[in-house]
């Protein structure tokens, strides 16, 4: 589904990604781990089209379509969804109206009919209830005054509404206590589907015991230096990045 070949990207003069090769098949959950500054978040931003990153070589395709050639919103319509590590607060726009605008934008782009307000309300409320998001939260401005857990649940709600094909989860576990982590993981797991792929970026094994990956890769200095099954994450947890021949982050 997602195919990345020899991807190089830089910010300004600084090269962050130095030749990434990665294939994620439909239905697969692929975890990317790695020390701080290894390029994990950059990879998610480059795939979702954030400005400020220059791709200098390589390619990234989603079901054969060239992602790098698309604008940010076109990628979203094509099925890319980035769950932010730090969801952005937007005063003045209610969550409900934001969600509806987003849903109808991707529906239009996908050639589907837009959803009327009443129909949408029912649809969104049902999805929100599954994530323990109440109506009051939906009336509030996007992410403004939300707790860490509420912000991440809101991300998963958007994911479940927009029905993307490729989910990029950027440190989704950061800022979550164990209860919030369980709710969020449950929401993510409910979206697992033979037609969807997940790229889960995380520092810690903790998230991966809730969202169990099929594959784990380790990113260091802009390259994938090791790959394996879910047991690789456990090994890293136990032995640190020294297990894959890197200098231990804690000791660095």
């Amino acid at each position, binding site marked *: 589904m997602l195919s990345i070949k020899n991807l190089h990207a830089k910010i300004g003069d600084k090269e962050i990604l130095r030749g990434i090769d990665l294939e994620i098949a439909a239905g697969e959950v692929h975890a990317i781990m790695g020390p701080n500054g290894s390029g994990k978040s950059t990879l998610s931003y480059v795939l979702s089209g954030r*400005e400020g990153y220059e791709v200098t070589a390589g390619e990234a395709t989603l079901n054969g379509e060239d992602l790098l050639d698309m604008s940010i919103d076109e*990628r979203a*319509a094509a099925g890319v969804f980035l769950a*932010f590590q730090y969801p*952005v607060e*937007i005063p003045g726009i209610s969550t409900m109206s*934001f969600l509806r605008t987003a*849903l109808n*934008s991707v529906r239009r782009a996908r050639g589907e009919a837009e959803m009327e307000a009443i129909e949408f309300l029912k649809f969104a409320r049902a999805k929100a209830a599954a994530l323990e998001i109440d109506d009051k939260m939906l009336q509030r401005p996007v992410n403004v005054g939300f707790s860490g857990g509420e912000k991440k649940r809101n991300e998963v709600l958007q994911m479940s509404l*927009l029905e993307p094909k490729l989910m990029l989860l950027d440190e989704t576990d950061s800022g979550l206590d164990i209860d919030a982590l369980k709710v969020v993981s449950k929401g993510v797991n409910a979206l697992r589907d033979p037609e969807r792929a997940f790229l889960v970026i995380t520092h810690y094994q903790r998230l991966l015991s809730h969202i169990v990956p099929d594959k784990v890769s380790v990113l260091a200095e802009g390259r994938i230096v090791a790959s394996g099954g879910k047991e690789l994450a456990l090994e890293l947890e136990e032995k640190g990045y020294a297990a894959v021949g890197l200098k231990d982050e804690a000791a660095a």
Partner: protein
Amino acid sequence: MTVSLRPVMDPAIERHLSVLEKARENLPGASQAWGGDLRSRAAEALARDGFPTTRIESWKYTDLRRVFRNEFAGQAQDIGALDISALDLSKWRAGEAGPVLVFVDGHFSEALSRLDKLPEGVRVMPLTAALADGASGIEGLLGSVSPLESPGLTALNTALMQDGAFIRIDDDIELAEPIQLLCITSAGFSGEMHLRHVVALGRHAKAKIVQGHFAAGESSGLCNVVTEAAVGEGASLQIFKRQEESRTAWHIGLVQARLERNAAFETFTLSSGGRTARNEVRVQLAGEGTNAVLNGLALARDRQHCDNTTDVEHAMPQGTSHQLYKSVVDDNARSVFLGRILVAKDAQQTDARQMNRNLLLSSGAQADSKPELIIHADDVKCAHGATVGDLDEDALFYLMSRGISADEARGLLVRAFAEEIIEAISDDAVRAWLDEGLVGWLNGGGQQEKAA
């Protein structure tokens, strides 16, 4: 640097004085001795003081020479060629309720207005009628809040005022529906209009005024409007202004209020029209325990210049004044905010706050912001602040990453920025009326007027 000492305004002043001499007998109020006398004194003040120049602090960023460089075609003698039956006022009205006074090119139109069914204790009439009627009570009120010495174009307005509204609300009368004053400019109008609205609220009276300035097509004239309001003890007045004149027209407006003990006053100015638009609000907190709220939103694009200037004078103790002015500036347009707060020696326990936020949408856009606080009392709370910024890139990325197009995402963020102050307005019809102005602008409003 050399400063020209020659009074640059002279030709324009002379032109206006000669207009006054010729038109004198036809101007409203000529039958009343006091009216004629007032115009003469206004002409004297004008000849003596001239127009304000940019050397005057409150006119620092708006140069009236740019306005009076145009030799306007004078005042319209009547409503003229405009087919008023074809005018669709519904898009300019703030709801269907309440009295409506319509002025076309500065002249009151009885046919378009609605003044029936006024409750007892409420007088609403055109200025022309009030000036002609010796018993209307306007004599002691006209110029009482905005005297000839008021800055700006007040003297010119007083000398040449041709119409406007006279509104008097008796003690204890509360009017729920807004009184609507709609000033329409016809397509092709290139003259001047000098409108004067005179408002007086008795003790514990309550009223809302909606003041709209709209264009029926592209025009290049000047609108000089002065709204003066005497707000009695414990009374409450709200004035909502929407200025949407042609982008080739000129607008100089003053809203001035004097608040007696425990009175409350609120204004909102939404200004998006005019080549140059000046919206000045001056409030004197003349009694103890008064409360003033001054809010405004300037929307400017192309080469527009939009100036919002406020002057709040805390003369007595325990007054509060809160100001929030925002601007959204695109292309090569410019917004100006000048906010002066004066706290007199006796005005202890004053709470005065002022905030100005500006959003610049292009590299050629400009916002000037200048607070001026003069505080003579020692037990006061005064705060002011100003921000200038562009759209939040993180928020744009967030919205677009959810499939929303760049244009729509920008529109949403601009609307979110601007909406904050409109949302706070409690009257549904008025809020919707202001919202229409904002949405119209966001959708490119004013650009299609050439086709109209």
